[in-house]
């Protein structure tokens, strides 16, 4: 839950919108301004804040916010 809230803050910051509410099914089509450029900004911000690194394969197969959140959870729990 804490990770999801943290993730929401990052989304709000990257997309410059305080109203964003995240759901697991949410995709790039659901967020205004989520294009390939802002997607990279989003990934870099997530990696920096959570101190994690996604693999190329993970980055190419994330389908929605749920996939992203799951991967962050897995990596953060390993780091702990």
């Amino acid at each position, binding site marked *: 839950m804490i990770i999801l809230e943290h993730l929401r803050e990052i989304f709000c910051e990257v997309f410059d919108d305080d109203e964003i509410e995240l759901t697991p099914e949410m995709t790039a089509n659901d967020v205004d301004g989520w*294009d*390939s*450029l802002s997607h*990279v900004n989003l*990934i*870099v911000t997530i990696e920096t804040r959570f101190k994690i690194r996604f693999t*190329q*394969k993970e*980055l*190419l*197969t994330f389908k929605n916010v749920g996939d992203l959140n799951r991967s962050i959870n897995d990596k953060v729990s390993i780091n702990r």
Partner: protein
Amino acid sequence: MNITSLKYLVFSLAVLSVYAITPKKYKWVSLLVSSCFFYYSFGAPYLLFSLSVVTIGTYFFGLYIYKAVKQSHKKVFFFLGVLGNIIILILLKYTPFIDENIKRFTEAANIQTDFQIGFHLVAIGVSYFVFQSIAYLADIYLETLKPEKHLGYLALSLSFFPKLIQGPIERGNSILPQIKNLDNINRTNLAIGTHLFFWGLFKKVVVADRLSAFVDPVYSDVSTHYGLEFFIATYLFAFQLYFDFSGYTDMARGVARCFNIKLTENFNSPYLATSTADFWRRWHISFSSWILDYLFKPIQFNLRYWLKWGTPIALIITFFVSGIWHGAAWTYVFWGLLHGIFLGTGVVFKKQVKQIYKKIGFKKGKLPDFLSVFITFHLICFAWVFFRAQTLMDGFLIIKSSIVDLPKSLFLVGDSYQVFLKHCFLGKPSVEFFSVITLIIIASFVPKVFQKNSLDEAPADEVLWFRELSSISRGVVYGVLLYLIIFCGASAQSFIYMQF
């Protein structure tokens, strides 16, 4: 076998008849044998051999990637599979280009050598099935697709004759399930397939080939034309290319649909794009989504810590490859680079441009749509100049003359009104010029005017509007189309995208 020929129509009907009487279990065999025969008919048996090598190699590498336990082993098999495909593509398509540039380089550097790769082959269709194979291997590697265990199904997905020589570049997830469930011919698909085929044939032989009669004389002898003529010829070329390729795509989708197979739509009103990025979401969609998924994204993610330069560099590399994929010539490379630069510049100056628009007062920091469409269309046409020009020097000369000589050809300075009119119509009678403009308008807008609703959320270019007409109106439309195809079609030329 030319796709616009009567021979192809008879061939397709023969394949359809055999398919209809073949038991369900063996329908894939009838299509595979027909597709091999079709490819063999191009008179270069090594093409069929290359297709077989690619199919068998892709089949086994797909299974190896899937079965490998360690991630590192999966990666090795994936790279070997992709490398094999690329080597075949280079050997078949790029040897003349490599030889020509070796010769140029050694002459310029004053090096004495006779080194040449030597064999120069025909590569019809190779770039399309090689790209489909790479996508298949990448999807298995990314675990978004399971490998096909039946070699025959995979072979047919790569060789299916309607899309073999010019795409669309299909994804395994889309075409394989359809091939595994080949069904008896049904009336609805047969009707839609026939509409698509004849509408595509009309776009190709009546519209595109008539336009080429205006464009070719200008672009094949640039030294005798100037100013306005280049503007008109380039606008007409933009439409020629669109109707040529979208006409082919409709024909391919039409024939495939008769066998109950839905191929990807390649176009969605590309010249209504409001940015070059939007253009690439609407033009040659099966190719642009391929380069986005398998080239741009991996490069972009690799360069993600290069701050704001990572994405523009990824775009330029991607579109450089796109250029060279289109043709082994520097004109195509330059055309690709131009698109990379357009998109890359948009990314680098995105914030500044938004701020400027806000200051000017455009809503939401965006230009009005009509202005965006106008500017985008001209950027696309600017790049088309190099796509169509015979040499890079020709391309630069066209751009220079379009700017420098424009006042002269607009009869503001020097030329008379008669000369101005001659330039407007590119030296053809005005009736001929206005008839091609009418054809462009008909081919562009008729589907949109008549299509009230789409049955399965098909893109705008789908010809479902045919089905919404009453049977009498449909008969009239078919009569007019066939009349135009038979009596007004220019003598059929080969498709532009076939050479890629």
